[in-house]
Structure formats: structure tokens, C-alpha cells
């Protein structure tokens, strides 16, 4: 009976399924199987997945085979007389023990892989990954580098006003660059709610817990670009915080680091320089403002400025967005509102971008204040903010109202 099933067509078909991924590897629009990945850990995961699937397929063929056999032959309509047996202790013990032994066989490779991927010793590079609503932030702890990585897909593509490109929702403005063949340790944490940092091809999925830090590691074997997404529901923008990792050679990596450090330094200087801020026209500000608003603010405050009150206040007609002094509005972006989802955007947006967003908000959706805010206004407040310690509103942080 068993031999009959093993030699049957069904067996061949199910086996073909395991080779299907090779056939479909190019056409990823029909990808049906797990990524093999580019780290030894991800390959172990893949192999374990395939072994488990094979074991399940074999058990399934035996059990389903017997069932299908009796469904076909043991029918009343064929005049089959029901047998009288209804008990067999020996058989019961056999089919308790056999699955148990199969499970033991699966537990060994699973345990081995798990112990391996738990070992973060002797890592050569450490990158801290911080999730927040709804972007990732990276700290290269050894190099002192820090930047944000935001979704780069234009708002118009999400709204179906532009054709979607091939990396729709999977591209970021600043990808993280790592060297190949080095053991990289990732420290994952969060600023607000739980996120999860997942790059399938690296074999890493680590939940980002606010207030706690957990580790994962990867040794990437192949240069390339690897994409992933947040995999823990983290609010309205959960679908919009992708991860892009670019693996390069060590030389390229070092070059990139020094270039980034220089850029970061000049960016900071530029933002805090009161003499070199450009003056923009209203149209320029409104155009850039709308674009940036839709990308950064609209998830909470909505594209039409109505927000989702009471969690995310409306900007249309809000006292901060139309009232004076405008400094209050600017500080809302520079400092944020600690203890709420409104975070500080000082390190994420340039003076020009903040000025544009504020000008846009103050003039869009019947907020017609006619106010124009220039990058210099932002720079002034930024310098002032740098001088004084950050104000923490204790009452908000504690959650007591």
C-alpha cells in the first residue's frame, strides 16, 4: 500500500513543488517559497523549513492516501459492508510513538540552528536599530554615525495617481550599508510601540520593544540590496516603514562611512548656521511643503488636515497651526510633544523642509493665514533649542491627566 502511494503521480507532483522555487526564482511575482537568503543562518532556516515541509508532505500522503482509498472503495453505494472493529490499543501506541520519533528528528536540527543564531559573540560591527512610528533609525555605534530611514515611495503612488515602481513600498530615502563577510550585531529597540525588524534574506526578525533591547546577528555572504518590512502592527503607518540593507565590500563600506560622517557634520552645521539660510518663495515652500507633509505627517494628521481626533489632532483650524506666535508651531516640529506620538523632527528634517511644511499647513485647507515661514526662522529656533535642555512635560510622560 505504502509503496503504491510512493510510486504514484501525487508523489511526483508534490516533489516537483520543491523544485518550483528554482524555476520561479527570476519571476518573483509568483514567488511561492521561502527566501534562501544570503547568510548561513537564513540558509539553515530555509533547510529546516524544507525538511519540515517534506516530513509533513510524507505524513500527509500516507494519511490522506489511506483516507482517499477508503473514500473511494468503502462506500455504501458500492455495497461495501462496514467492518465491526473499533479499537486496537497496539495500533494506537504505534501511532503515538512514530510521530514522537519524527518530532525528535525535527527537534535536533531546529535546536542546533537556534543555538547558533542565539550566539552574538565576536561580532565585528554593531548597529543599533530603533523603530518609531513609522520609520527606522540607525546608530553605527562604532563609527558614531546616526541617521533616519524613511519610506521613499511618493505619496502619489500610494494614492494611485502615478504608476507604481517596482520597489513600491520597499524603498527608503537612506538605506543602511553594511560590509559583507563580517559578523554584524544588530541591537533592536523602539521609541514608542512594538515594531519588528525583518529582512527575510538576512534571516533576522527581531521585535523592537520600547524600553528593552534585543540582539540579532548576520554575516552576509553576498553583496546586494536586501529589502524587508516592519512585521508587527504598529499603528496607522505599519505598512509604510520598509527596511533596505545594502551589503558592500569592506573598502566601499569604509568609504561610505567616512562620507556619511562628513555629510552629517556639514548638515548639522548648515542647519545651525544663521547666516547661510536660503530664502524661498511662497510657491517653492508650498510645493515642497505639500510633498513633505504627505510623506511625513499625513498618516496621522491625514492628507486633508482633519487628523484622527482625539489621538491625532486636526491641523485644519487648530490653534497651533493658525494661531500666533508661530514659534509654537515650529517648536512642535523641532521638539515634539513628549509622551505623545508627536516626536521631534529636528534631526530628521532640514530647516527648509520644516519651513515648507509649516508654510503649507498654515495655508492649506482653509487655514489661509497667509504666513510664510522661512528656513532662517527655523534655524533661529533650532539654535535656541540646542542651548536649553529639552523640556519634558512630566504630567504627559507619566500618563496621568
Amino acid at each position: 500500500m505504502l509503496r503504491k502511494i510512493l510510486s504514484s503521480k501525487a508523489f511526483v507532483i508534490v516533489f516537483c513543488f520543491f523544485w518550483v522555487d528554482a524555476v520561479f526564482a527570476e519571476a518573483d511575482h509568483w514567488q511561492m517559497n521561502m527566501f534562501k537568503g544570503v547568510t548561513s543562518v537564513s540558509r539553515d532556516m530555509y533547510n529546516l523549513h524544507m525538511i519540515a515541509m517534506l516530513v509533513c508532505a510524507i505524513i500527509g500522503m500516507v494519511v490522506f492516501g489511506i483516507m482517499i482509498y477508503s473514500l473511494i472503495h468503502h462506500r455504501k453505494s458500492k455495497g461495501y459492508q462496514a467492518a465491526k472493529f473499533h479499537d486496537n490499543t497496539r495500533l494506537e501506541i504505534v501511532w503515538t510513538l512514530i510521530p514522537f520519533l519524527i518530532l525528535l528528528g525535527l527537534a535536533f536540527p531546529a535546536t542546533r540552528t537556534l543555538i547558533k543564531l542565539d550566539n552574538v559573540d565576536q561580532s565585528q560591527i554593531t548597529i543599533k536599530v530603533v523603530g518609531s512610528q513609522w520609520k527606522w533609525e540607525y546608530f553605527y555605534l562604532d563609527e558614531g554615525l546616526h541617521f533616519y530611514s524613511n519610506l521613499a515611495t511618493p505619496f502619489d503612488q500610494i494614492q494611485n495617481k502615478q504608476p507604481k515602481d517596482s520597489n513600491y513600498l520597499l524603498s527608503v530615502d537612506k538605506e543602511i550599508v553594511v560590509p559583507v563577510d563580517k559578523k554584524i550585531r544588530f541591537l533592536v529597540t523602539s521609541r514608542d510601540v512594538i515594531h519588528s525588524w525583518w529582512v527575510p534574506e538576512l534571516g533576522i526578525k527581531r521585535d523592537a520593544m520600547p524600553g528593552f533591547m534585543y540582539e540579532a546577528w548576520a554575516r552576509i555572504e553576498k553583496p546586494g540590496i536586501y529589502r524587508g518590512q516592519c512585521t508587527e502592527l504598529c499603528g496607522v503607518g505599519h505598512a509604510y516603514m520598509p527596511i533596505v540593507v545594502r551589503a558592500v565590500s569592506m573598502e566601499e563600506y569604509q568609504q561610505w562611512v567616512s562620507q556619511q560622517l562628513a555629510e552629517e557634520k556639514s548638515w548639522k552645521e548648515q542647519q545651525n548656521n544663521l547666516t547661510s539660510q536660503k530664502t524661498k518663495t511662497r510657491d517653492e515652500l508650498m510645493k515642497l511643503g505639500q510633498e513633505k507633509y504627505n510623506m511625513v505627517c499625513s498618516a496621522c494628521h491625514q492628507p486633508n488636515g482633519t487628523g484622527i481626533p482625539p489621538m491625532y489632532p486636526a491641523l485644519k483650524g487648530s490653534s497651533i497651526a493658525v494661531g500666533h506666535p508661530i514659534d509654537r508651531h515650529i517648536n512642535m516640529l523641532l521638539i515634539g510633544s513628549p509622551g505623545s506620538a508627536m516626536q521631534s523632527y529636528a534631526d530628521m528634517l532640514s530647516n527648509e523642509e520644516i519651513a515648507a511644511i509649516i508654510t503649507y499647513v498654515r495655508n492649506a485647507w482653509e487655514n489661509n493665514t497667509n504666513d510664510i515661514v522661512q528656513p532662517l526662522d527655523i534655524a533661529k529656533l533650532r539654535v535656541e533649542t540646542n542651548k536649553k535642555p529639552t523640556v519634558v512635560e512630566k504630567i504627559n510622560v507619566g500618563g496621568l491627566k
Partner: protein
Amino acid sequence: MNPDMTASLDHDHGPEQGKGFIGLAKRWLFTTNHKDIGTLYLLLALFNFFLAGGMGLLMRAELFQPGHRFIDPNFYNQMTTLHGLIMLFGVIMPAFTGMANWQVPLMIGAPDMALPRLNNWSFWLLPFAFILLLSTTLQAGGAPNFGWTMYAPLSTKYAPPSTDFLIFSVHMMGISSIMGSINIVATILNMRAPGLTMMKLPMFCWTWLVTAFLLIAIMPVLAGAVTMMLADRHFGTSFFDAAGGGDPVLFQHIFWFFGHPEVYVLVLPAFGVISEVIPTFSHKRLFGYNFMVYATCCIALLSFIVWAHHMFTTGIPLGAELFFMYATMLISVPTGIKVFNWASTMFRGSMTFETPMLFAVAFVFMFTFGGFTGLMLSLVPADYQYQDTYFVVAHFHYVLVPGVVFALFAGTYYWLPKWTGHMYNERWGKIHFWLSTISVNVLFMPMHFLGLAGMPRRIPDYAVQFTNFNMIISIGGFIFGLSQLIFAWNVIRTIRGGPKVDAQVWEGAHGLEWTLPSPPPYHSFTTPPHIH
């Protein structure tokens, strides 16, 4: 409710409460009869099935193509939350409680449930709990939008104000479940006909007995979890907030200590239904009754020590991961025993394929398939790739839809002639079966592929390479959803009329319920039946 519909149910000597609408309302509001309450539970479940199913279809409509189409992300998140909560607490649990109400007294030879007034109360809490839950959709900030798992701090510090209504609603559902469970335990332990020993109890009663104990154990844990949420939200505590010395993972531990046994609360009664249906239509006794009972108890006990397998990626220590992986793998042993026993019951039987049997056979195939992916998910390293992707969505929908919901269909078609005294329309029953079975696979099978290819769950928009499978899934979803209208129509038509059936209904059926006329008298067994 249409008086015609109820006419067949209270034709014996239902307690009249006056004429007209007031009389009808009072009759159903005050009823303490196990059949009336069973009917109410089942109708509530049927209503909620379409409500929560509609929410599922809204999500599928949004996911038909990438890009923002019909509903915005915040509303999408509200739909994920409500779809999950209502399907679990408003469809599967009440439906099985309804079946238990109808069947347990009939199967053990009792006149009614042990605690009829408690029975009335445990039902009538539910409609109000769901009104409360649904009212959140109309509130400022919208309904809760953090998924049915309610992970803190998204459900505490960052949640809409309507979350408090959800918390209170969960409390009410919990009280209702606990009372219903106490009633079932009391009935099965105390009201069995003389000579009906525990090891002669029908499997449906056994699985429900174990389920009831599970519910009594876990519902207070859920109540505790949501109360801690409430305290974090309003009373300045920091159970789940690291800034005050708490830990967000604590919530997950407490929630899944409830949540995993809850999975078996949903599935054990389904095992019971299948263990009744398959022997009847195989014309052969259930194979390995004793082992089926042991396996049920074994699953229930193991279900308490596997909860952290929902949390493998949260950073729990290696030792804990290993323990929970082994414990989870172990659960497939008793579950396997069940599947093997069903297969052996069918083996060398003399099978006929009426609608209940069709659904039961489909259950065994597809539930086992869901079990296989469950085994794969238990392997921690592989789970790192599956966790929180569509692979998980596929896994638990396979277990719950072609698994548990199909068992509900099988049970309904199986016992409906007994309950109403009318035969359902077999032809439409078979059409319902084939449409459901094909579309449910079109709906959930490609989700495995999406998950493996990297699509996270609970996202309202996705990368373009996932488009093909998502389209297929949505089409399957709409066909599946619409085919359920056939079921509702068939059930309502059967309640209102149809060919009369005798007491036996099914040729191969055994058990006390088949010794009573169809429909059974209002006070099922007024004298205890004789057990051979």
C-alpha cells in the same frame, strides 16, 4: 423575529408570555429552556458570522490591488481588530455554546441544563457586549485599531478612547463564557441518565466538558490582562510600560496564556462534532474512543504550556525558546491520534456522503493541513521567517475556517433536522459544500506563498510583487463569503418548513438524541432513559 420561524420551535408547550410583539419578546427574553437559548446563541452566531465576514471582505476589497483604494489604513486596522474579535467571541464560541445547549441535555438524557437561569443570563449578556463593541466604530477616534491581540503599548498609551469600551465588552463576554461553562460542567457531571458513565459519554460532551474547564481557567486571565490595560490607560500604573518599570512583553505572556488554550476552546468542540458525524455516516463505531478521550485531555493540558510560541521573536531567552518549541511540537502527537482515529473510523466503513459527512471529511483533510503548518511554525528558527507574515494568517485560517467553521456547518446540517423536525435541502447543501470547499482553498492557500515571499500581516497596502496572489485571494474570499448566503437561506428555510423527518433522521446515528421525536419535546427527557 418572524412568528412563523419560532412556531416550529415552541409548538409543544413553550411558555407563552402574552400575545403580539411584547409577548414574543418576553418569551425569548425570559426563556430558561435549553433549546430556546441554544437557538438564540446559534442565531447570534449566524448574524455575527455575516457581520465579521463582511469586515473580512472589506479588507479583501482593499487588498485586491496595491495602493490606497477603498478604506484608509486606520479603518483597515479597525477592521482587523473587529473581524478577529467578533469571529472568535461572536461566531465560533457562541455557535458551539448554542450547539452544547441544544445537544448536551439530549445526549445525556436530561430534561434541561443544570442551571437554567444562569443559562439565560449568560446568553443575554452577549448581545449587549457586542452592541458595546460595535458602538466603538461610531466613536471619536474610531474603533480599537491594534488587532484582536491588543498588544501594549499600542493598546494603552497609543490607543483611541474607544478602547475602554472594548475592555468592558471583553469583560462581559468573559463573564458570559464562564457562566456558560459552569453550566455545561454542572450538567454533564450531574445530570447524566443513570448508567451513562463518563466513558460512555458521547465525544461531543467529552470535548465540551474539557473545553468548559479550559474556559473557566483562562477567561479570568484575559479579564486580568484587559484590566491591567485599563489601569495603564487611566490609573497611572505601568504594567506594560518600561518607563515605569513594566514590560510590554508581560502583556503578551498574560494574553497568550489565555490565547493559546483559547485556540483549543475553539477547536475541541469541533473535534467533538466531527467525532459524532463521521461514525454516523461510516456506519461504524468511532475508532479508539478511549484514546480520543485521553487525547482531548492531553491537548487541553499541553495547551497551558505552549503559549510563548506566539512570541518567539520577542527576545525571550534561548532556554525558554527551546522549552516552548518542544512543548508545541508535542501537541501534534495527541492531535495526530485524533486524525488517525477518524481515518480509521472511515477505513472499511460503509460510507454515505450527505452534506454533514462531506463537511466532516473536508474538515479532516484541511484541519490536518493546518496542523502541518502548525508543526512547521513550532520550529523556532523557521518561525523567525514565518512570524507575523501571511503564512501565519494562512495557518490559523486553515485551522479555523475549513477546520472549525466547517465543523460548525457539519454539526448544523447533522442536527438541524433533529432540532426542527424538517429536512434541509440536500441539493443546496451539497452546492454550499462544493462552493465553500473550493473557494476556501482559493482564499487561504495562496496566503502561504505570500507569507513565505515576505508579505507581513495586518498591512493595508503591499509591494507590487504580491499583487497576483492577493487578487486570487480576494476573488476566493468573495466567492466564499457569498456562498455562505446559501447556508443561511437553507437553514432559515428548514426552520420554517420542509419534509418531515422521523426520530432517527440518519440511518447510522447512535445516541440518546435520536430516541426522541424530531423536534424533541420542550423538556427533553422528563423521565431518565434506560441505558444499555
